[in-house]
């Protein structure tokens, strides 16, 4: 789909009130107290969104709510349909969550781990044996993250960067429309951080998909998308094109530190580097 056709489609969907994802006045939290309060935003196909904000502001809670992990107040719709009227598997087939790596206790091969992403697509309901198509899909995902040569290796023996690529491949194998990133770049070195973001941008650029990324690193967040949301204390402080909304004052107020000053100072340090 070329740019014009995409723009037309987005306009058409928006006019019908059928955004790919629509979050309306959503509040959610744990044990009865709300961590996010009245969050609203829309996301259309081909559009990415970066969410930034200080620790504990509710970024992760927002992602978990969108991924149907938490009970919430308000309404979330996918393609115009309320998620409350959908089964969990109907939501999960559209939305995948890629989190930071947690402890791995059991050893699986890289291939088997990526195959788990096919869970909702495998047709054999009795034992869950994958079809040829599932196998081909997994190989394509392994190719995409450059892990074909490692496919038989034990995931407990991989480096952090390799492991994160395995999980990316598993997320891709789910064939979702929307990928939610919950600080997946933690513990990754710079090269993999950039590669991950660039890969996902490319993935979403076919016009029918979208990525919502919670990234600690503001530069990385801006690299993922110019579409920025700033959250503080569970509320949306600002949302829009980063060029329109991002000011030194707003960032300082959000993070309680002179972010712009810090960035300029960092930049100066690079001036003499060849």
């Amino acid at each position, binding site marked *: 789909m070329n740019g014009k056709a995409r723009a037309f489609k987005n306009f058409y969907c928006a006019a019908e009130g059928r955004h790919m994802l629509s979050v309306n006045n959503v509040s959610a939290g744990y044990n009865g107290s709300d961590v996010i309060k009245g969050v609203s935003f829309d996301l259309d196909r081909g559009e990415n969104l970066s969410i930034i904000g200080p620790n504990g502001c509710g970024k992760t809670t927002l992602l978990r709510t969108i991924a149907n992990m938490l009970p919430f107040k308000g309404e979330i719709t996918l393609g115009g349909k309320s998620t409350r009227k959908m089964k969990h598997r109907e939501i*999960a087939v559209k939305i995948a*969550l890629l989190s930071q790596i947690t402890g791995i*206790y059991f050893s699986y091969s890289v291939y088997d781990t990526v195959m788990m992403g096919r*869970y909702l697509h495998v047709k054999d309901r009795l*034992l*869950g044996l994958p079809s040829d198509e599932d196998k081909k899909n997994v190989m394509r995902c392994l190719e995409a993250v450059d892990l074909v040569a490692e496919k038989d290796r034990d995931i407990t023996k991989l480096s952090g960067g390799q492991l994160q690529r395995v999980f990316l491949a598993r997320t891709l194998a789910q064939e979702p429309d929307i990928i939610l990133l919950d600080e997946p770049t933690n513990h990754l070195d710079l090269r993999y951080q950039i590669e991950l973001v660039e890969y996902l941008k490319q993935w979403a650029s076919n016009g029918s998909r979208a990525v919502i990324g919670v990234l600690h690193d503001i530069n990385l967040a801006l690299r993922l998308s110019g579409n920025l949301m700033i959250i503080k204390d569970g509320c949306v402080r600002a949302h829009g094109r980063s060029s329109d909304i991002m000011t030194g004052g707003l960032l300082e107020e959000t993070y309680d530190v002179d972010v712009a000053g810090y960035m300029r100072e960092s930049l100066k340090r690079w001036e003499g580097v060849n």
Partner: protein
Amino acid sequence: MKKKLLIAICAAFVVLMFGIALGSVYIPPGDILSVITHSVFGAALPEGFRAATVSIVWNLRIPRALLAFIAGGALSVSGAVMQSVLRNPLASSYTIGVSSGASLGACIVILYGVTLPLIGAFTLPFMGFAFGLGTILLAIAFAARMDRGMENNTIILAGMVFSLFVNAVTTLMTALTREHMQRLIFWQMGSFSMMGWSAVLILAPVALAGALLVTHYNRELDMMTFGEEQAKSMGVNLKRVKWVLLVTAAMLTGSTIAFAGVIGFVDLVAPHIVRRLFGSSHRLVIPMSAVFGGAFMVICDLAARTLIPPNELPVGAVTALIGAPFFAYIYFKRAKA
């Protein structure tokens, strides 16, 4: 991999054969086969075949070895499920209260001489099963109420709270009526003696159904080892699957305890060893745990009745006596390499 599987299954058959052949009287495998063909297909026995041999093999040895095999298999499958679902290598049905509950049930039957109508002689196993399963269900229901997401730690803690409470009740009841203490303690130690075919015929279908149901959920089990959030994000209906698996695992342990008493350790160890040998994929871990745990239990029972004749050792103690060093060997040898 296929070769490994074949070897494991053949080894299990050999072990089962040993379990039947060895004992106070040695019975050669040829005679065992004669008895089986005679009893099952009505084939004629060789001339001069002793009737006592038929009786020993068919009425004592075979049901006992089969029962041990089924019990070991059921316990191991249950342990594999608990470890993966609760994502804790030390979790088992015992951790969340099934043995405490079963002991209380047995205690009530033994102390008060309760006999339920219709099932008569099976009152003891039935009450053990019902109380064991009841305790776990209460613990899980309590955990679900306290924490809507049913986090693993909540379940383990709730199970331990219930388990300790029920244990205290049992201890109080036994302390007040000491004359029955011996019978209760013996029941708690576990044994496969004097069970016969009826126990096999009841336990076998339960164990088979449970193991098949769990195997059906092999992919969900795989995904749950990565944590609940990841499993859910891949589309697993976590709450339902978790309920089904926990209850099935509790049922497997509960029904085994009911017939054989409290036998520990095998459910903890067998799945770990199987994962070392065959990898973590539950499509293999579940059936292989059944095979391995079954064979292991047959060996333990063999040791229990032949090591210090004519005394019979409690099989529950033997599992740990043989299992602990074996476990340490397999686990740490691989860890080093």
